[in-house]
């Protein structure tokens, strides 16, 4: 047993932290998230080309750094610390994860493009009626000659306005909630018939409603087996879920540190408010949540390779714990700041917004407790 990071992992963290420290201070972030495009593309390019960071989880033969889920977690935690909006999660963790899993020509073609920073891939999986159920799909891909025709509506697709490609879940068979009949496609984002409505999200990202209106897609867009995509999708979403837990850990750490710092400066009744025991205990509770979030992220990450049921129970345990911790830490960071906490001016409120959205990303605490119970407590 060994819970230390390798030298390469430490290097990834330090390099990224230094880069983000130089390029991603709060004011700069606010400037580009409020710009028309909502991002600064130079940062993505630098992450790829100067830092080689987009290759963190990929094999060396594809040009990557030879890492995996732990490396993704390191990157996500650092992005969390600056409330980064870079589309690392959908592009590298999710699409990259799916490509790694299927391998072959598709992986050979796409992974180098991801590593080079040329491809941004958004994950179009959620549907208005589906909540957090990955199989609850109305979007259909019907066989048509050699390819497919895609129809349906995907909601709140993060990073879609910037995407060169979309990773889409759709039904090639079965009924709306069947496990069978689900397929995964990687398609060009600008195919005829793709209608997008773009908007900002409350946590500073950009997202879209995507409507597929008779979109013709080629046969080689299919990742994995036709109609048998759900296990792959579940695995990739589990990888994404622990990556989001890692991001949450970074966000929560900053919420906690910001609160500690503020309460030592802010004086009321002639003393720094950090002197009030009720606030001290609260900050201790916040600290314990941050530590446990980190522990559960590592636990979930290390168990990603186990058989599906064990993996799912572990990931759900991690996400439920982190979601509740994020809720507690976020709310109490604001409360402990008093009025200043609810303004747009301070970074703390923006961390709170991101931590809030993380709570339900890939399933709320309830959703994951439910999945945990179904697996771990099954008689």
């Amino acid at each position, binding site marked *: 047993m060994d819970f230390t990071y390798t030298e390469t992992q430490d290097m990834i963290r330090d390099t990224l932290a230094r880069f983000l420290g130089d390029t991603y201070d709060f004011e700069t972030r606010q400037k580009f998230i409020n710009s028309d495009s909502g991002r600064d593309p130079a940062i993505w390019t630098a992450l790829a080309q100067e830092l080689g960071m987009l290759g963190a989880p990929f094999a060396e033969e594809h040009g990557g750094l030879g890492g995996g889920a732990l490396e993704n977690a390191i990157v996500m935690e650092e992005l969390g610390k600056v409330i980064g909006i870079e589309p690392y999660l959908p592009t590298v963790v999710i699409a990259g994860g799916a490509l790694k899993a299927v391998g072959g020509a598709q992986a050979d073609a796409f992974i180098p493009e991801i590593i080079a920073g040329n491809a941004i891939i958004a994950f179009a999986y959620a549907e208005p009626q589906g*909540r957090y159920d990955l199989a609850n799909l109305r979007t259909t891909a019907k066989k048509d000659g050699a390819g497919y025709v895609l129809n349906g509506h995907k909601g709140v697709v993060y990073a879609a306005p910037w995407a060169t490609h979309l990773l889409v879940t759709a039904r090639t068979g079965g009924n709306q909630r069947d496990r069978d009949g689900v397929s995964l496609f990687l398609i060009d984002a600008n195919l005829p018939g793709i209608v997008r409505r773009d*908007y900002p999200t409350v946590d500073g*990202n950009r997202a879209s409603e995507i409507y597929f209106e008779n979109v013709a897609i080629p046969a080689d867009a299919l990742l994995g087996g036709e109609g048998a995509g759900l296990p792959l999708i579940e695995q990739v979403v589990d990888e994404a879920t622990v990556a989001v837990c890692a991001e949450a850990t970074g966000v929560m750490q900053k919420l906690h540190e910001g609160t500690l710092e503020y309460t030592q400066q802010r004086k*009321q009744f002639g003393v720094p408010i950090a002197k009030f025991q009720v606030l001290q205990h609260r900050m201790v509770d916040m600290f314990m949540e941050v530590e446990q979030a980190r522990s559960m992220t590592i636990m979930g990450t290390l168990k990603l390779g186990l058989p599906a049921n064990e993996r799912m129970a572990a990931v759900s345990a991690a996400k439920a714990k982190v979601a509740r911790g994020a809720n507690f830490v976020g709310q109490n960071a604001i*409360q402990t700041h008093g009025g200043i*906490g*609810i303004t747009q001016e301070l970074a703390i409120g923006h961390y709170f917004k991101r931590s809030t959205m993380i709570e339900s990303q890939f399933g709320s605490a309830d959703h994951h407790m439910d999945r945990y119970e179904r697996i771990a407590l099954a008689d």
Partner: protein
Amino acid sequence: MDMEFSPEDLAFQQEVRDFIAENYPAELRGKQDEGEELSKEDFLVWHKILHKKGWIAPAWPVEYGGTGWTPTQRFIWSEETARADCIRLMPFGLAMVGPVIYTFGTPEQKAHFLPRILSGEDWWCQGYSEPGSGSDLASLRTAAVPDGDDYIVNGQKTWTTLAQHADWGFFLVRTDKDAKQQEGISFLLIDMKSPGITVRPIITLGGEHEVNEVWLEDVRVPQSQRVYEENKGWTCAKFLLAHERTGIAGVAASKRGIEKVKAIARTELDGDKPLLANAFFKRKVADLEVDLAALEFTELRSLAGPNANRGPGPESSLLKIKGSEIQQRLTELTLEAVGHYGAPYFRGFGEGDNEHPIGPDYAHRAAPTYFNTRKTTIYGGSNEIQRNIIAKMVLGL
């Protein structure tokens, strides 16, 4: 002891329902439902209708324009207005400075200001908090120095709610630097159009312009606009804070809020069933209902119990704490209910496109409202301060 409405109460209830049905402005309907931000005009339309009817200030003594309703009638009134989802009335004139003026003001102040509060002619704001004086309000430093018949006021206030609309503000200012903190404060009414006042917006987490900084630079204020004695302003301030805290319980509004959450959870799907059928979600709604009932009956005991005539005391802190926590849980549950559609930021939506909607309407403000409602445990004396008050004043610690 009983909790039945008398036949007179039931008749009154019907009268209120009819009145609201006939008079509540159509253009306001639904605005509260969708959680839209309301304009100054929106608030004033309903205010003026109630003023015309004579129902604008049920809590005031009849001699100053109150309705003379019994506590039960006032309870019915707040239930019915919340049930019909009427927009809330701004508290700064009606619930705050009005009672201070009729309790502590001069005959001239009463004659001038009270009718204008009732009619809605003057919009008021509350100038208490300062950047360095939040929870420790008594440490405030904005200073008023006598100059002939006037004061010259200098300082900075902050978090001043809707000061951008205000005609008048009631301010706590220091008039004696050497006295013990609480004993050197006076209560001034200041015309917001006075030269030397600058109001600057503070934008809150949901993107709202709801609070402001108010800068006062050599602002000349006639001493006749001081309420009560010089250096006795703390008495007015404390009186008013207790009033502010009862209003904050918001039982009727939270009842309505629970109905809204249920309506959403009946529409949202969880698998092939409505979300409200999900056992976890349903239990949270039930928990809220139980806690709200506890709050309601605690409030009723204080309104209609043996101490009802004594006015709000330190136990109103309990109503503030529990009421604000319930309000926050409601917004949290709403955000949870809307799932993915909590994320889109409504201010960023382009022109409407009915063919390609961005989630259901009820989701559009779920997240901003959740963020914004973090304020309820901070303002009006934070919940930590309220607990300190209960510890000291009720438990005697």
